[in-house]
């Protein structure tokens, strides 16, 4: 079996059935279109993700499409967090409009950073009771953004292995049949997954 057959045989839906969050994985493999977030929520969340991991080597959580990962997660196994996301995104946009007269996504980068710092510090005044607690929600946003940047592409983020390329992780070497001892020792270079 060559590498291509190997990946075809063990890839796709079969892998999804075994992996964590199988429904979200299947949804992610079906479509990159929003499943549960509306256009405004998607836009706000995408802007948040882009600030949490700004580009390194030219690629950040925006280009890796972390927001798509989160949308699929909220559509299925983590749908318990969906109301918190909806309320939180609305509250953050309200706060942005009140302070700077724009939705979060329309703010300049410095204002977006200020906004998220205030959220992380839990100091946004008049934050609605119905929204998730500021600091806990920020921690969740940060966690999900990192997952969307670096979890395997089958989950809907890290698209085209963008996150792995950005940080210099060569990918799932086990899916390629591994590497040689000379590559481990550094005597020979390791070809990353996307070169295969």
């Amino acid at each position, binding site marked *: 079996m060559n590498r291509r057959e190997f990946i075809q045989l063990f890839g796709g839906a079969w892998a999804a059935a*075994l992996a964590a969050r199988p429904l979200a994985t299947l949804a992610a493999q079906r479509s990159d279109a929003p499943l549960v977030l509306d256009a405004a929520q998607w836009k706000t969340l995408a802007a948040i993700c882009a600030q949490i*991991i700004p580009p390194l080597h030219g690629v950040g959580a925006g280009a890796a499409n972390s927001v798509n990962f989160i949308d699929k997660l909220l559509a299925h196994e983590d749908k318990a967090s969906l109301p918190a996301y909806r309320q939180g995104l609305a509250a953050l946009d309200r706060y942005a409009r009140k302070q700077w007269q724009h939705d979060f996504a329309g703010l300049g980068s410095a204002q977006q950073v200020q906004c998220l710092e205030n959220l992380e510090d839990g100091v946004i005044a008049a934050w609605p009771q119905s929204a998730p607690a500021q600091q806990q929600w920020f921690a969740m946003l940060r966690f999900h953004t990192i997952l969307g940047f*670096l979890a395997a592409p089958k989950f809907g983020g890290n698209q085209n292995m963008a996150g*792995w390329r950005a940080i210099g*992780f060569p990918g799932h*070497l086990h899916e390629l049949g*591994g590497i040689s001892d000379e590559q481990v020792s550094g005597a020979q270079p390791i070809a990353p997954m996307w070169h295969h």
Partner: protein
Amino acid sequence: MKNKIFDVCIVGSGAGGGVMAQQLAAAGIEVALMERGRNLGPADFLAQDELSNMIRQDFFAPDYLESQRSEAGETAQLGKFSLLAQTVGGSTAHWGSWSWRFRPDEFRVLSSEGAIDGSSIADWPVAYEEMEPFYGMAEQALGIAGSAGSNPFEAPRKNAYPNPPHVYRPASRLIESGAKKMGLHPFPTPMAINSRVYGDRAKCMNGAFCAGFGCPVNAKASTLAIHIPAALATGRCHLFAQSRVVEILVGDKGRVRGVRYLDAQGREQELLARQVILAGGSIASAQLLLLSKSARFPNGLANRSDQVGRNLMCHVFAQVNFEMDSVANSFAGPPGNIAIDDFHASDRKRGFARGAVIAEAIESMPISSALKAANYLGAGRRAWGQPLSEYLAKFPYIGGLIAIGEDMPVSSNRVDLDPTLRDAAGIPVPRITHKRHDNDIRLVRYFEQRMAEIAKAGGAKKTWSTDFTGVKTGSGHIMGTCRMGDDPECSVLNRWCRTHDVDNLWVVDGSFFPSSGGYNPTLTIFANSYRVARYFIEQAKRLDVR
């Protein structure tokens, strides 16, 4: 099988249960091997990824629940304390494979140290000399790659390792260089991963998804790859996968007569056996004994001493990462290839008792690495935005060291049954009550300093620690809960891992450890199981099993 009576029922298929199944079946004994997890194999392991296996931990334990708290009186919250695999092969399917022999003094901690306040330290009823040949058997069976004699501080051994050590990556060489500059004695970490083809198992493919993952080519030793196939080949071992034992059945003479279990469809079944051997791990075995209450055993089976579930240990880890000028290759090869044992021996002048082995820990997992950003950045910087991206860009240059510290057994650190939380089958979840002894914390601080010194001496640009002492978390190294001892008043098992209270009930997983040793525990579970199996087979006639 309704009325069939097996010679032996083994509950759990990891290091303890897998060896027993193979050894007993080979000796002509008919065995039922019960495993609550799925029967996955190398092809399935190709589908693994970090999110499933490490972050969510739902590849190997998809529906497993525990609750935890730090002290009696608190209400326990649902949370993961243990990192254990529930699959055919048990945790040997996903272990990291570091394979050490405990040192002779680690079998007699109380004699070496004297009493320690707040700890229930005890000697083992078995000495190193008795274990030595069984360590040798385990090393040969697993195909340990290592270099005998390269660690001047290791326990005396009669045999060499069956396979040569693994190659060093750039990060291993930095550690080697630093250690040598400090006058220390670095050596290749002994690992149960094939450095060459061994028996019918492949050479390691250097994929670096080892600890927490099943090996797609069986280069990593496991009961799944070695012992269970051998047991099944005898025709005398019957594997029951996705069969969760929920009660040990007690007969009218106070002996056990089999188990009640839930099959793959969730239906209740009974399986009868003349002898029952528990091997489901230190949490599940204690849970099962406590669940098996009866008029004769109102506090749970084998628990007249009130020791079942107590003295839960999980090791204490110190971790230091370091940044190199050039690529570390921490994402390639086996899970850490070099070790240093110079600081292992206990020295009370250091301000704590006992010690640890230091070994290279690879930084192979991108998400887990990203989640440690705050440790690199320090308290003054936010762990997101520009600082997070700066840190993530360092990923290829990061290497790591870990110390596997002997933690103090404490009687009140325990597993019992949660009074309110139940799992999907309606069974009380195991409740973990665990608070670290101060000695554990002092040990960690000392080893953090030594590891940072080694990395800096080797030329690391920067070092930083990750603190595992302050969080409510256990590990994959769950030990204790049914300690072995000569005195039935303060131990659950005798020196053969048979319960003091019930003469046809045995426990051979990590539960039996009276103390945790400063090394990963699995080789000792393997070796002990070979030791108990030999006794069991010698006694088979008297045990009423052929």
